[in-house]
């Protein structure tokens, strides 16, 4: 078995995809958006509750999808919970660099980098980058008040 495959489907990823954190909906969500990956038909719905301070007070997701998209959504909800809007956007930028195999540089704090690094293997699978970014794009769309998005 190839190393790149093992790196893509490492235990952490499979665990996140099988036991996603923050799975479900939020009854009193302030922001909601639905995302769709036309490549494989995967969908994700992101619920956000912003505190008056602008911090992400709660975040949940629903949806079905491949291991990569599920794990990515699960990881994302984990990491952005409690962050401010700017921090969430910053994290998204860094994450996009990471999975596209681009220079991450200062866009991610070391501890965030460490947590997200399990997704770095995706960069060896260009056709799967969309799976990894779907949840993030959908969260972004929710925050910007958009409706359904498809992953780019």
């Amino acid at each position, binding site marked *: *078995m*190839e190393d*790149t*495959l*093992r790196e*893509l*489907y490492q235990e952490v990823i*499979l665990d996140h995809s*099988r036991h996603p954190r923050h799975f479900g909906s939020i009854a009193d969500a302030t922001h909601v958006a639905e995302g769709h990956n036309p*490549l*494989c*038909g*995967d*969908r994700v719905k992101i619920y956000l509750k912003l505190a008056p301070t602008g911090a992400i007070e709660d975040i949940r997701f629903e949806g*079905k*999808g*491949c*291991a*990569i998209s599920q794990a990515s959504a699960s990881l994302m909800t984990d990491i952005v919970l409690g962050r401010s809007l700017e921090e969430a956007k910053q994290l998204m930028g860094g994450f996009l660099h990471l999975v596209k195999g681009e220079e991450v540089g200062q866009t991610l704090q070391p501890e965030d980098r460490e947590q997200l690094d399990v997704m770095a293997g995706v960069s060896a*699978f260009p*056709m*799967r980058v969309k*799976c990894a970014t779907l949840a993030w794009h959908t969260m972004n769309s929710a925050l910007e008040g958009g409706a359904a998005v498809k992953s780019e």
Partner: protein
Amino acid sequence: MNARHTQFDVDRVRADFPILGREVYGKPLVYLDNAASAQKPLVVLERMTSFASQEFANVHRGVHFLSARATDAYEGARARVQAFLNARDTSEIVFTKGGTEAINLVAASFVAPILKPGDEIVLTVMEHHSNIVPWHLLRERHGAVLKWVDVGDDGSLDLNALEAAIGPRTRFLAITHMSNVLGTITPLEKIVALAHAKGVSVLADGCQGAVHEAVDVQALDIDFYVITGHKLYGPTGIGALYAKSAHLERMRPYQGGGEMIREVTRDSVTYADPPARFEAGTPPIIEAVGLARALEYLTALDRAAAHAHEQALYQQAREAVREFNWLRVIGDAPQKGAILSFECDGMHAHDIATILDRQGVAVRAGHHCAQVLMDRFGTVSTTRASFAFYNTMAEVDALVGALAKAREVLG
């Protein structure tokens, strides 16, 4: 003789397809995505190159030597398609850019003009989006009602349901000859008889069917039959519509442009006879020539042996995956072509395809442009291995082995 050998000399035909000899990720390519698009024998590409580099000019209306040569080649390609489908006359063959366009043409030029709001179009749940969305457009724009015929759990067509679906308001029946997901082959002759008995015209989407089955449009008495070049081992950018003369004669034009007119003035336009009426603009000339060469190649094969070989590949794969109790095959109709679609417990089709790909095995994962069918089977995607006559038993083994590894990684 080894039971796994068939009469078909697969090594010899493989040599005709250069791409089959290539590697991906350092592993031999195992191309099992034939239902999406087939590979092309070198003779097809060579013919296109020699035509384009020695005989090319625009067709029709040209007096000069090359134009005459090109016109002969283009019209010769039409005759080749006619023979392939056993149409009565070359004028019953309209070249299109693909199967999708051919269906849109029929929807717009034959069905739309006879449609009143509330009139019904009958489809099956196993149609490809290309044989669904053109009818949805008629629903959106002309008030057509779509009636759906179900398939059984094994993926076979429910003929009684089909008969029941055709009612007094039914204006058209559009049905696949072979499902690109289930492999199911539909009994067109019966279906046409049944529909005609109720005065309903029938279009068969033969994009898959014509690849695997011999087609005789006269014997079927079918009204419209659609093929696409790239699945028939020919180039992209070309397809064809067979339509009965009587239909074409009274159909209104589809696209407007050069070649499809008789006379144009500022205030009026009159149209050419079929098939020209439906071929606006410069046609895909080089592609038609390529398609003709592909059909010639195909016809020169022992098609019965090729078909038996494909079936043997499929059976081999079908048997092997019975051992995977975590795998569920979708599509087990008695009459089916060499397509194996399946779902796996806890493993997403996309992940499976990625893992297979890294082992050199090219399969398709997703909804296969058949979301209505996915809904029917309660899923959003399947993994699909589709076989061509140039695939080998060793490739089936590679598929099965790669699936076991996917289980290992993801399971």
